[in-house]
């Protein structure tokens, strides 16, 4: 085996991404260890399995259904020649952890927005009530003034206006 071939073999075998060679009939002709690990919950032998021909233009997110929670996988594919025949090289990247993080972040943001909305509602209600109280105190003070009595309430807003 030449140095280049040995290098290429190691790159493929030690890749963290799953690599599949799929022939024109949609049958898996080659699967690297990472690809086997991705499908391990469904089969221990990907080789010869009728997976299907990839038909995508750009990287596409796929779901690998299985027992328990599904895995999310980003797939890219390119036409190649494999043992003299036209085939497809499919690269599969497990993005499950990223999807879970995105989902958690989305949930956290939605929760935060909901709490913020509740806080705004509470603030509006509290400030509104406070403004009403100030108005009532002013009215009472005015009435007291009319009948010659001392003002009953100290209104902070008026004091600051006076001091300003």
């Amino acid at each position: 085996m030449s140095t280049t071939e040995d290098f290429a073999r190691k790159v493929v075998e030690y890749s963290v991404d799953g690599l599949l060679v799929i022939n024109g009939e949609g049958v898996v002709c080659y699967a690297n260890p990472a690809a086997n690990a991705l499908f391990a919950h469904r089969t221990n032998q990907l080789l010869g399995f009728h997976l299907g021909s990839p038909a995508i233009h750009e990287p596409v997110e796929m779901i690998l259904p299985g027992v328990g929670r599904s895995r999310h996988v980003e797939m890219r594919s390119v036409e190649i020649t494999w043992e003299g025949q036209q085939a497809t090289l499919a690269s599969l990247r497990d993005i499950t952890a990223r999807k879970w993080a995105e989902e958690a972040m989305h949930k956290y943001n939605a929760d935060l927005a909901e709490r913020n909305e509740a806080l705004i509602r509470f603030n509006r209600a509290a400030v509104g009530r406070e403004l009403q109280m100030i108005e009532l105190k002013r009215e009472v003070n005015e009435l007291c003034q009319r009948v010659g009595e001392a003002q009953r309430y100290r209104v902070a807003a008026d004091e600051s206006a006076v001091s300003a």
Partner: protein
Amino acid sequence: MKQNPDETWTLFLYVAGMTPVARRALANIEAICKEHLEGQYSLQIIDLLEQPALAEGHQIFAVPTLVRQLPEPLRKIVGDLANTAKVVVGLDIQTSASAGQRGRR
């Protein structure tokens, strides 16, 4: 170009919820069927979130996957089916171009 008018095409599209990719796959296959198989196909959507056991029947390992059950032989295509040329070849749909090529052989 129309296929053999006596042939009925039975297609299944396996998805796991109507994700954006699943919606794209559905739109793509509907457009291809409308162009090439008008009036002679049935397309059934199977959501594995609702019916996970059905994945075993056609041995579905990834979604979206399109299965051509009829005419035989069974064929499978995975992905969002955006590569129309690949879908047409994968399903073995006869187009004007492929009929021309066959005629020239």
